């Protein structure tokens, strides 16, 4: 089924003056796999919403022009009708399932279409086989990992057998291994002659799948390449447009853009007791036989940024929680309070409570000192927002407010949980810069991440975890190749 956008303009406001999409003409042929890339706020998600009918049928705003699915105009259809032809997968795995158990979830779309129960059962079994998710059948979705949830979402959409698939940043919350599984799923759809439209920042996994990569800027398609063309232009070219790297292998020789980092980044630090922080006996288990975390000694280079990599379920988050005193025995927790690690969560909305940015920083401060708080905010380029409500800020600013609250709590170690998930290249650089500044100001940073570009830009050493243990720990300098290999083969 062909998708045609004719002279489409759209604005989230009441007039078309500041439109997100301006006079867009765009055609996606049947069976094509098209990737929309571009910096945050360029309008690529809006294009995906135009295709799955959320605009104009769900989202309020002003629209001009026509979107045709085959020869039908989406404006004349209902969302239920469109859902027969277009299946959508979204970014956040937590908020896109409607049922509590996996089986009902996969059947959900078919049930909504009023299909015959026998037919639905057949389809569910077929999809489970096609996606190799037999081990997920009959499970509670709340107990699944993000990657598993995303697979269920894909399976559920696939069960209704639509001609078009629209995916909005499906990989944002996934590790590289799950991303590879996602690539397999998209490849499978493509082999069945389906049309696939993907909005994405991380594009490396689509290297062998995508037919076209369309660069969206200011609500227009500004440029278009095949994956091979974009790869040939190199990661520097992609970075200049604010795009992520097309081929991770190319990063092996890349020089970090933020070379003027803290002193320690150039001279590899000697691991002596003075220069590293040592932690003993980091253990955690739900059950004696299967420890989730089993680290006898952890040494963190002081005032440096250390990345923790490893696949989902390797114990990275548990390590962070034990270090921050959120999990473990009361003795571990008491110890954690003493040496103090502060966690910046992946969803920073969870840790902003108060009515103003300044109050947020003051809250954890003992004794409270407004002048010192303002200094912290100035260091994070937030001084002009001191009296704004934290929830009114952008994602990146919110993250910096959370960092500010961590700094003001006086804890020396700051742990980040996936600080760059779903960010474009420039936002990722901004986060790297903030982290480096924090490290120079005397904090020791630990970053859980699946983002190799980010690690190469700002981390000094890497810890790879496996089955709750530290598999290896090395300095990044000179080991870039090893890192990329490890991340690609997790």
């Amino acid at each position, binding site marked *: 089924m062909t998708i045609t956008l004719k002279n489409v303009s759209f604005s989230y406001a009441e007039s078309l003056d500041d439109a997100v999409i301006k006079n867009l003409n765009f055609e996606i042929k049947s069976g094509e796999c098209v990737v929309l890339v571009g910096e945050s706020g360029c309008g690529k998600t809006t294009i995906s919403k135009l295709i799955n*009918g*959320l605009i104009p049928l*769900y989202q309020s705003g002003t629209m001009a022009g026509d979107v045709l699915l085959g020869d039908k105009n989406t404006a004349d259809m*209902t*969302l*239920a009708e*469109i*859902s*027969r032809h277009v*299946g*959508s997968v*979204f970014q*956040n795995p*937590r*908020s*896109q*399932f*409607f*049922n*509590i*158990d996996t*089986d*009902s979830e996969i*059947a*959900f*779309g*078919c*049930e*909504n*279409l*009023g*299909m*015959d*129960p026998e037919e*639905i*059962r057949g389809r*569910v079994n077929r999809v489970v086989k096609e996606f190799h998710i037999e081990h997920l059948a009959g499970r509670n979705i*709340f107990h699944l990992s993000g990657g598993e949830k995303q697979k269920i979402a894909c399976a*559920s*959409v696939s069960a*209704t057998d639509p001609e078009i698939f629209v995916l909005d940043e499906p990989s944002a919350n996934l590790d590289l291994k799950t991303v590879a599984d996602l690539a397999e799923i998209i490849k499978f759809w493509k082999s069945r002659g389906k049309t696939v439209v993907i909005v994405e920042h991380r594009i490396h996994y689509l290297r062998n799948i995508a037919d076209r990569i369309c660069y969206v800027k200011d609500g227009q398609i500004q440029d278009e390449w095949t994956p091979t063309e974009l790869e040939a232009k190199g990661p520097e070219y992609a970075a200049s447009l604010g795009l992520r790297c097309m081929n991770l292998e190319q990063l092996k020789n890349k020089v970090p853009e933020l070379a003027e980092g803290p002193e320690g980044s150039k001279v590899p630090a000697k691991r002596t007791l003075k220069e590293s922080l040592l932690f003993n006996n980091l253990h955690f288990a739900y059950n004696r036989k299967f420890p989730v975390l089993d680290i006898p000694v952890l040494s963190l280079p002081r005032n440096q940024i250390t990345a923790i990599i490893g696949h989902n379920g390797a114990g990275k988050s548990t390590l962070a*929680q034990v270090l*921050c*005193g*959120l999990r473990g025995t009361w003795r571990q927790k008491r110890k954690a309070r003493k040496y103090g690690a*502060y*966690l910046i*969560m992946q*969803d920073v*909305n*969870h*840790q902003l*409570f*108060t009515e103003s940015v300044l109050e947020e920083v003051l*809250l*954890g401060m*003992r004794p409270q000192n407004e002048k010192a708080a303002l200094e912290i905010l100035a260091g994070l380029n937030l001084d002009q927002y001191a009296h704004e409500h934290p*929830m009114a800020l952008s994602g990146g600013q919110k993250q910096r407010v959370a960092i500010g*609250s961590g700094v003001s*709590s006086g804890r020396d170690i700051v742990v980040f949980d996936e600080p760059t998930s779903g960010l474009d290249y420039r936002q990722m650089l901004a986060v790297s810069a903030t982290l480096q500044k924090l490290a120079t100001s005397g904090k020791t940073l630990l970053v859980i991440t699946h983002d190799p570009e980010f690690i190469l830009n700002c981390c000094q050493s890497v810890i790879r975890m496996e089955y709750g243990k530290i598999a290896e720990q090395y300095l990044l300098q000179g080991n870039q190749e090893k890192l990329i290999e490890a991340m690609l083969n997790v």
Partner: protein
Amino acid sequence: MDVGLAGTLFVSTMMLVSHVMPISVIFYYVMTTTKVNEFMAGMSKMHIPNKVTIPLAVMIRFFPTVFDEARDIGNAMRMRGIRLFSLRTLKNPLAILEYRLIPLLVSLTKIGDELSVAATTRGLSPETRRSCVVKIGFHVQDVAVFVYCIAVVVLFCSRSVT
């Protein structure tokens, strides 16, 4: 009989527990064992319109989310050194409520919105008639339980009257 202040407090707490406990137990049981699609199928068998069923179904789906989010927020608060029972919170109990509720409401609104987007793009709408994989019906077992419950209620009422 004079039981003193402590005794009165104890008795009234126990009264509260014994009255609230059955309700919460039933609530917990219903929420954890009812599958959303079974619930929707049952409701549509009873000819209750989708406009009523869908919001109720969303509610079942939403409870585990509320607990998940609340736990994350509680963790964040603990890191800031704000605990539920401390000198500071006793001085200002309203602030603690605010700190807990604001982030919870913000993230729940966001999740609620994303959830309804996901459900509508997958064809859930009040106008169309759904089918259901699970067979739901009113059988002998249901009649038996129904009769039993009514009998208990009648017995209880008649005893408390006499």
